């Protein structure tokens, strides 16, 4: 990754496009699962989404392997895609957008209260 890519994130766009090309080759039910996984993983993204790239790459690999084996998506992922994504992103305590917002809110409220002498 060179400086230009770091600043513009152009390497990410390219990587995303490569992922989508691979996803295109999957059977329809796998493609649908892929769309869902992306949605469920997005709250675990850091600011640029760079942290998700290796995870997405691995998941695509899993889907590709499983599709080649002829398994159904349900055999692979079960009912709990959200739980699967949370586990992938590093467990329940994974730092997510929502978690950071909550922390910030708590901090701000505490600050305000402190200033009011509450």
């Amino acid at each position, binding site marked *: 990754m060179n400086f230009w890519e770091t600043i513009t994130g152009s390497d990410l766009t390219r990587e995303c496009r490569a992922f989508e090309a691979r996803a295109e080759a999957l059977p329809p039910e796998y493609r649908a699962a892929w769309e869902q996984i992306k949605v469920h993983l997005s709250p675990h993204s850091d600011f640029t989404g760079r942290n998700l790239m290796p995870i997405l790459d*691995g998941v695509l*690999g*899993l889907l*590709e*392997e*499983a*599709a*080649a*084996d002829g*398994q159904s998506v*349900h*055999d*692979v*992922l*079960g009912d709990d895609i959200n739980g*699967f994504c949370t*586990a*992938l992103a590093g467990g329940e305590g994974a730092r997510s957008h929502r978690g950071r917002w909550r922390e910030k809110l708590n901090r701000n409220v505490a600050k305000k209260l402190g200033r009011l002498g509450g």
Partner: protein
Amino acid sequence: MDDLTEMLKGTLEGCVLHIIDSEETYGYAITRRLNELGFADVVEGTIYTILVRLERNGLVQVTKRPSGLGPPRKFFALNDAGRQELAKFWAKWEYLSSRIDMLKEGGR
């Protein structure tokens, strides 16, 4: 048996370590092994997340091998740290199961 998932959760990682210890293997085969044992609810995705965690924690050695069809498969073998972790798992399991048995045998 239904609804085993919650109880199984904490021990699944140890089970996966044990399976990998007996021979180098891959995600799908591990899932099948557990299904055959009677854990029908275990899906490949669950095993995949465990394998990712084992890799991240440096307990396994990963080799990519070409497969007959589709992309190359990732094969997993335990390294020394993994074998130590497995020994710890069995020690904890012995402790837990012996205590629970005692509770059950003790009546009341």
